[in-house]
């Protein structure tokens, strides 16, 4: 393992995470309660509490290229259990955004799924599962994954062929528009 050079931590990164998330990372005293309750920990390369520690030390590249920030399911167990009132899930969310803006690869398929999902919502006002799956599978080339689930879902009418377009479609589109104006949609992420 490489030495972590403590004096060369990226303090701008710490400040940026704190500003964007509204959280104070120095409040974390490494009790590990977030890690203890995390249901996605088995997929992580670093546990949540280690991600918090890496942020405290300004280890920008390690954090933003980690798998953990992308595998987080935003269940917010960590935020709920944190004795110091830190919204840990919010911090991970901010890291995902940063990772994307800075062009770190991250977990490609998670990113593709998120894009396909948002695209679907933008078009229809809510997600159209079949279309979403089609786009995601084509982009990720994971054509045959989870295919065995399809018959059951079709039978239960969970995968309608026609998208159901909701009434407030324009309002939903407005959300996307306002976000794009605020920050430049997925700014810089798509290199």
């Amino acid at each position: 393992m490489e030495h972590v050079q403590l004096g060369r931590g990226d303090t701008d990164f710490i400040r940026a995470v704190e500003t964007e998330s509204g959280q104070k990372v120095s409040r974390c005293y490494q009790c590990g309660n977030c890690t203890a309750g995390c249901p996605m920990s088995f997929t992580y390369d670093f546990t949540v509490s280690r991600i918090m520690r890496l942020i405290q030390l300004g280890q920008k590249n390690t954090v933003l290229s980690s798998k953990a920030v992308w595998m987080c399911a935003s269940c917010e167990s960590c935020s709920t259990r944190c004795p110091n009132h830190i919204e840990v899930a919010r911090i991970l969310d901010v890291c995902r955004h940063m990772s994307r803006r800075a062009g770190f690869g991250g977990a490609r398929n998670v990113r593709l799924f998120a894009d396909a999902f948002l695209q679907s919502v933008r078009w229809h006002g809510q997600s159209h599962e079949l279309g979403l799956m089609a786009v995601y599978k084509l982009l990720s080339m994971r054509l045959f994954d989870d295919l065995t689930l399809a018959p059951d879902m079709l039978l239960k009418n969970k995968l309608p062929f026609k998208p159901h377009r909701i009434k407030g479609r324009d309002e939903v589109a407005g959300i996307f528009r306002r976000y794009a104006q605020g920050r430049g949609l997925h700014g810089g992420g798509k290199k």
Partner: protein
Amino acid sequence: MKIGVFICHCGSNIAATVDVKKVAETAGRMAEVVYATDAMYACSEPGQQAIEEAVKKYALSGVVVASCSPRMHEATFRRTVERAGLNRYMFEMANIREHVSWIGRDQGPNTVKAIELVRMAVEKLRLNRALIPRKLPATRRALVIGGGVAGIQASLDCAEAGLEVVLVEREPSIGGKMSKLDKTFPTVDCSSCILGPRMVDVAQHERITLYAYSEIESVSGYVGNFEVVIRKKAAYVDWDKCTGCGLCIEKCPSKKNFDRFNEGLGSAAAINIPFPQAIPKKAVIRAEDCRQFQGKKCGICAKFCPTGAINHEQQDELVTIQVGAIVAATGYDLADWTVYGEYGAGRYADVITSLQYERMLSASGPFGGHIKRPSNGEEPKSVVFIQCVASRDPSIGRPYCSGFCCMYTAKQAIMTRDHIPDSQSYVFYMDIRSPGKGYDEFTRRAQEEYGAQYVRGRVSQVYPRGNKLVVRGADTLLGSQVEVEADLVVLAVGGEGSREAAGLAEKLRISYDSFGFFLEGHPKLKPVETNTAGVFLAGSCQGLKDIPFSVSQGSAAAAKTLALLSRDMLESDPQTAQVDIKRCIGCGKCIQVCPFQAIREADLRGQSKAEVLEAVCQGCGLCNATCPQGAIQLSHFTDNQVLAEVEALLCP
């Protein structure tokens, strides 16, 4: 009047951001100031000597020192001017450290403000008068509230030194939390074996009067002369007749009641003696559990009592005593651990608190000293300890470290292996805090000799699997989630101030914090004093402590009490309210606002007038501010003195 002004540098504390030379120079031109200078450390020996010499050389009649807070050194400089031959109230202090140099970085404005504060002090001093304290007789008796180990120590020390002591304990027996413990760290000696003899000493001491099962009803008076009303709660048993034989407990038909002494681990009869070594060893009936009080036909205890001590008609009794000093030693209560739903306390029988575990380990406890799972009575082979329950957790409003849990957990892990050699303990901890004599070695022994597995991380969940409990947590050193199957889970619950502390603090007129701990006079220099003269603190009521520290503080509070009451006469503070009889119209508003009942109505040739009981007056000034006639004035803080300060500030 000839005034001398001394501006203190306080090293660089003041001089770094205040131009002290300029302040002294300006002060030299103020009204009636004949001498002004600066000093490196005014409070040091040469500093004080310089003041004394200046008083003599320039025939000063008043002194202003501009330095730190009067809370820090007013008493110091009052003694200085007194040594120089002045009255101690011919002194004023301007706080240019806490109020100026420590809070502002800019030298220009700082210097201006310092000059303003000095001018205010000078203007007030010009109106100061010499005040003479009165001598008051003191009652040479002390009241100790709380019969835990700290209160016991304070009582014994005071009584040994010849003082009369009244010890009041709200529970039926003295002994406090320590009497519930099985063993004590780091020596693993039996708690009741070392505490028991002390409790007996209290009972047998000719100068200690013990009021058990009693509470403080009210406190009035002042240092040296407190009047305290004690409520002796009805035990429904005549304690003069009760011999503590225990026959009533055996015969009582209402046996399935919450056992307070055993933390609810066993069950207690409605008439009960909490534990075999109880002092006094007298029975108490709890009305809420007793069949007789629920209107059912019973009275079995009365039928069997060989001495006829049972008296269901007994009433609370009020006793009034006079004391010169009060030691509060009310201890702590466990914090509320049931807020942690994820640990399952209350839902799963095999999740218990550390204090319940102590009762389980104790040979006189409900389990006879055998560790058993409350659910099925089996011997647990895997015991998990979870530390920092309701400690170091800002999310539930308990940000502080309780200080003793690391140590008692290590002890309990050792005792577990001692009782069940083929058991395994797991301790989930955040940091091990063991800064005491032999303490850290003790936690190492728990791991090295007794094989306790210490896991660094918090626990997120405890849930049942079969008839076992699964504890899921993190090992942050490993960087991984961990899981362990447990037969018994012990929560190392932290403490908070006694639940009745706030009410008592108000009766004693002392301060307390949001966690229920009483506030000491100064965190370092007055750890057992309070801001109310004659009231001292001992033990965990001031902040959580282990046994050695509680005992030390008990002795410290006793030393303070003895020092106070070693004199036959006490000096009263002359900064009290004075009534100008000519102006007083007898409206009685001052009587209404006085929080100390220090003012009464007096008759002067047929006219009603206010009269101040100087010994009771605390000099708060409420009457002064209320009086519509300006007839009642607070000595040393008269309207004119305060107005002179305001004028010095607004129209220099």
